[in-house]
């Protein structure tokens, strides 16, 4: 167990800006990234602009309930990516199914399920998710079903994040931003300290509380 010493070190502006920039680029906020660069005068790191543009589009398609278009673009960007990440492919297809059910195209959804989702039904690990997804068909008002979380924007964001990371990984870029890494480290360190010294001395790390100041 290594104890981190809180040295009164000044964290340089450059470091902070780099962290923020990498976060913006990861999440394809290119306009914001350009603004930040021009305001601070920092140099933008050399990144694949084209890759970022495409990722931006793909993410938007998912959030705008156009999962099939997202799949199409992903296949254009990296042919074997979805083949190698079947879980993700499955999630995207399920999203499309959910989209069809939501707009009342139940028969189309059923036919889509029979052709595209059925192959996944043979693999045990997808069956539980498939049960939840298919059950939406049984409800005239899917919002009232127990699986309503599949219709939520939080869920779509989750799938979009996942796809984003997978594309970055596939292109050999880091799939987690330094910001996320720092927060993860902070949480784990705090956890060790809490275990050693008790909750009163070192409460568990909470980002929310830290942001309150």
């Amino acid at each position, binding site marked *: 167990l290594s104890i981190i010493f809180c040295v009164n070190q000044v964290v340089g502006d450059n470091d902070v800006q780099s962290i923020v920039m990498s976060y913006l680029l990861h999440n394809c906020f290119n306009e914001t990234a350009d603004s930040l660069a021009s305001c601070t005068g920092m140099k933008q790191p050399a990144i694949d602009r084209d890759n970022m543009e495409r990722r931006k589009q793909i993410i938007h398609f998912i959030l705008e309930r156009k999962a099939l278009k997202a799949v199409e673009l992903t296949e254009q960007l990296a042919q074997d990516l979805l083949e190698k990440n079947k879980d993700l492919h499955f999630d995207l297809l399920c999203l499309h199914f959910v989209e069809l059910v939501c707009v009342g195209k*139940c*028969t189309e959804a*059923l*036919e889509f399920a029979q052709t595209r989702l059925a192959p996944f039904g*043979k693999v045990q690990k997808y*069956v539980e998710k498939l049960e939840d997804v298919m*059950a*939406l068909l*049984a409800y005239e008002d899917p919002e009232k079903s127990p699986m309503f979380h599949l219709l939520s924007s939080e869920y779509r964001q989750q799938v979009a994040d996942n796809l984003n990371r997978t594309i970055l990984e596939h292109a050999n870029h880091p799939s987690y931003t330094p910001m996320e890494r720092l927060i993860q480290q902070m949480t784990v360190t705090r956890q060790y300290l809490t275990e050693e010294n008790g909750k009163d001395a070192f409460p568990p790390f909470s980002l929310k509380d830290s942001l309150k100041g």
Partner: protein
Amino acid sequence: MENGSWDFLGSKGLVKKHEFVRILVQCLYSLGYKRSASCLEQESNVSYKSSDFEFLEMQVLSGNWDSSLAVLDRVFDNSKDEARNTALYLVFKQCLFECLKRGDTSLAINVLQKQAPMLKVGKEKIHRLACDIVTSKEMEYGEVSNFLVEDLRKRLLVELEKLIPSPIVIPEGRLEHLVETAVLDQIDKCLYHNSCDAVSLYKDHLCGRDQIPSETVQILMAHKNEVWFVQFSNSGKYLATASSDCTAMIWKVLDDNRVELMHTLQSHQNPVSFVSWSPDDSKLLTCGNAEVLKLWDVETGVLRHTFGNNDNNSGFTVSSCAWFPDSARLVCGSSDPERGIVMWDTDGNEIKAWRGTRIPKVVDLAVTPDGESMITVFSDKEIRILHLETLLERVITEEKPITSLSVSGDGKFFIVNLSSQEIHLWDLAGEWKQPLKFSGHKQSKYVIRSCFGGFESSFIASGSEDSQVYIWNLKNAKPLEVLSGHSMTVNCVSWNPRNPRMLASASDDQTIRIWGPGKPNKPENRLQTDTFLLFEFWYAVVFWIAGIET
């Protein structure tokens, strides 16, 4: 169709005639006698299939799902019944399958969203229906022929039959079940029952004493002093005896069940009071209260090893011993509390030992057939059951001194002989608060041993100080049979584990007796004896008259 008049059968009028006939018809169909079955249906006007079921059959086979569902809904009266919901689910599943194969997806959606919920099939089943659309095996079929649909509908009916309650559908094999129940009940009441053979239906089952060993068939005289121990080998093909003449003997059981001496094991300096067969019957252990433990090879009768004999003066006296299932490790307990309990391998290396203040004098010792537990009787009222892996111990304290211990063949029970003339039966699982008690024999001064025996260990046999062998059926605390023959105390008995009709007993009268099936106590025999006595009587009368006349 059901008969309007309600005739009753049986001496007490408890059985409805039409139900009886319907069960008969079911039995005939299941035995393959279709013509007879249908003939009986016509003659008696009792039909095997109820009208509801025949209607359901028609609807299912023609794919009229709405009617099928309506019938099922009516037939099950409780909507919470799991069988009902499963039956409805199965019909919906077939209906969905056929819709989708026809390409009628909108109807399928309708079934899921409206029909199923209306019949209150339950959320879980509806979700499963939706999932079946993509996961069920039947959906994988590409082209669906009429033949396949017909076949699936027939299979659906078979499944529905299992779920629908009586009297719409009667349970499979009903007549056979009723007959078997009666037979099992008779067997349960039969105290001499000692086999798994089929039982005749022509008369009420009752076994006689010809089922258990109750007559002497052979007397073995070879020992020169009191015989203290006897035990059949696990295979039932050999017999070992131990005597105060300081020898042990191995006998062979021949094919006709006669017993012949094979080896005399001579090496002990003191009386031998205990033997133990290795589970594979290749080795024999012998020991005595004031004697050491010796290991012998069964086939040759050669001494393999003497245990704990490091210094010539003080040997390690062993009162009892037991084997582990691998026939390579054994454990023994000493009558000398200093020695404790020791586990050895067959080469004489000590593997483990229990010594100390917690280990007093060992009266008797056994290992369960699965090798998991060791049961030890400590002087003189304590039984400890130790689970060898978890080291959990269970202690039973008896009220009177225990002289011996015996474990049942299936390892589920054990019996102990108490010097208060009782045999106590305990369960190894530890669920019983009180033991089963058996009495009737005599035991107050000596070590008397008992054993389990017979088919499924249904019996207990014990020696006794009144020179008789006592046999109990586990269902009764009083003896079933008392066998006379020996002239002195019977010390030990052993029931052949492979021959439920063979018992051996060892006595202070220096002999071993082999017991076999008794003469049946059938009425025909009694008649013969009665007739014989009648003749005897008239002979006596004739001679008396003749005597007077002279």
